[in-house]
């Protein structure tokens, strides 16, 4: 009887695990089936490297959106990563344990704020500030970068804290015993030892930044042009799909699925690079 229930539980768990994989596979197959024929018909060159997007006159070039996505994601990393890593060092090395127990859950709460709220704050507070002090339309790459940087902060921070905390205390004690100062210990011993975890945190944050849609649509302005400065408005790949999917029919609809294919490829390449980077770090260590 016991063995029977043991087996039953195992089967159910296997089925659940496979349903997750099946869902992923189905999504990928569906997007490819809808998007690839369009890419073949229009030609990858015309699709990816043309900067004219005007579905009404059959012009489907997504270069501005690719550029927009890269700008915004890069901006989010510039804002979020230094804040995240330095915050993690401070919280895990300089703050007493009892205080950490209060601060860390508070930071993780940030991750629970719906993205539309971030977007709303961006539109109401950030965009007017940028418009009045730096010029431009306000709804800009800079605004999106700051908002996204804050949005990915909890991910980077909490994973970095966990991996710094996981560094054995004997490492620190060894460094201190050799005469290293507290800061020397941190940047020469603790951080290198925690590197792979920190990189994982950054990559997960990157994934969130590139995939974020709602908050970005609200603050980035969505202009279809290759941005020339952080104060310009731009459109990301995700925003392009979300903005136009409601109306799109025929070729236009297929081109949005093709945009999804490009997004999928970019995210897969990113993850691949991340996995490779993490492996290499492991080897050096």
């Amino acid at each position, binding site marked *: 009887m016991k063995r029977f229930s043991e087996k039953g539980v195992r089967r159910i768990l296997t089925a659940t695990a496979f*349903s997750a994989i099946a869902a992923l596979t189905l999504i990928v197959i569906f997007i490819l089936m809808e998007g690839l024929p369009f890419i073949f018909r229009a030609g990858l060159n015309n699709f990816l490297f043309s900067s004219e997007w005007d579905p009404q006159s059959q012009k489907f070039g997504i270069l501005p959106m690719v550029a927009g996505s890269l700008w915004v994601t890069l901006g989010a990393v510039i804002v979020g990563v230094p804040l995240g890593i330095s915050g993690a060092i401070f919280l895990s090395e300089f703050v007493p344990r009892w205080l950490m127990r209060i601060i860390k859950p508070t930071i993780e709460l940030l991750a629970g704020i719906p993205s539309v709220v971030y977007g709303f704050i961006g539109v109401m507070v950030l965009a007017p500030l940028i418009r009045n002090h730096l010029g431009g339309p306000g709804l800009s790459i800079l605004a999106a970068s700051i908002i996204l940087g804050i949005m990915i902060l909890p991910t980077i921070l909490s994973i970095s804290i966990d991996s710094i905390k996981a560094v054995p205390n004997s490492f620190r004690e060894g460094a201190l015993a050799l005469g290293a100062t507290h800061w020397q210990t941190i940047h020469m011993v603790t951080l290198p030892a925690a590197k792979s975890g920190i990189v994982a945190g950054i990559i997960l944050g990157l994934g969130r930044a590139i995939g974020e849609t709602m908050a970005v649509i609200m603050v980035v302005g*969505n*202009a279809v042009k290759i941005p020339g400065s952080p104060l310009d408005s731009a459109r990301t790949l995700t925003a392009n799909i979300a*903005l*136009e999917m409601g109306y*799109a029919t025929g070729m236009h609809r297929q081109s949005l699925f093709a945009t999804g294919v490009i997004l999928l490829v970019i995210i897969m390449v990113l993850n691949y690079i991340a996995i490779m980077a993490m492996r290499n770090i492991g080897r050096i260590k």
Partner: protein
Amino acid sequence: MIGYHARSVAMKIKNILISAIISLIAAVFVSACGRGKASITVAGSTAFQPFAEKLADNFMNAHPDSSITVQGGGSAVGIQSAISGTAAIGMADLVVLPPEAKVLNPVVVARDGIVLVVNPKNKVNNLTLQQIQDIFNGKIKNWSQTGGDNRPITVISREAGSGTRSSFEAIVKNISLTSGAIIQDSNGTVRETVANDSNSIGYLSHGLINEKIKALSVNGISGSTENIINGSYILVRPVYFLTRGIPEGKSKEFIDYIISREGQEIIKANGLIPAK
């Protein structure tokens, strides 16, 4: 991390499965209860959706034997679902119906003005059609060229495929939107952006003007309800109800109700312009 991720995905799928089962049961239950009623679906334009819902409520009160479901989705969805038959009536508010809508029978049930709006701080009160064209084409880049302050113009438009945008461009003509234009995805967000940005210009549905933004006259004629009804204001688009073939049965009854005097009064009372 990977384990954690897979677990959360599995949890999500489980939740989705559970909610799918619940909604399936609910759907069976509801359809069982609804049996015996003649039911039709109306889908399309999000601008007209709230009015259609109100009209459907009133219609169902008068005809307890019928049930009308109103769905949004946008004008393109309205046209598609009327063609495919998933909706008995498609709603579309476009000046020019796309070629695929030729197979459908259009009935104009209301009209809607499109109004150019700027921030109340802006001194400009009137633009000519030519100036509007030049602003949205990116030829005029500064408010001083139209009699305003020396400030850059921020053009705000809608996403490609929006009924409001295609109607606006069809009436103003020869617009190839300047690439620097900010794109917002609804009438409401256009209004918010214009209310917040003193350099901006946008356009939206006549029914959505409020005190936070300023409506501009076009060629010296303001977009008031009277000017739209008497035909002197030019930025007006029709709201179509589209059916496959001549409407019959419940679809005909509902459309007849909307274009009846009572239906048109409800449309007028809620800020839209009657069909005639």
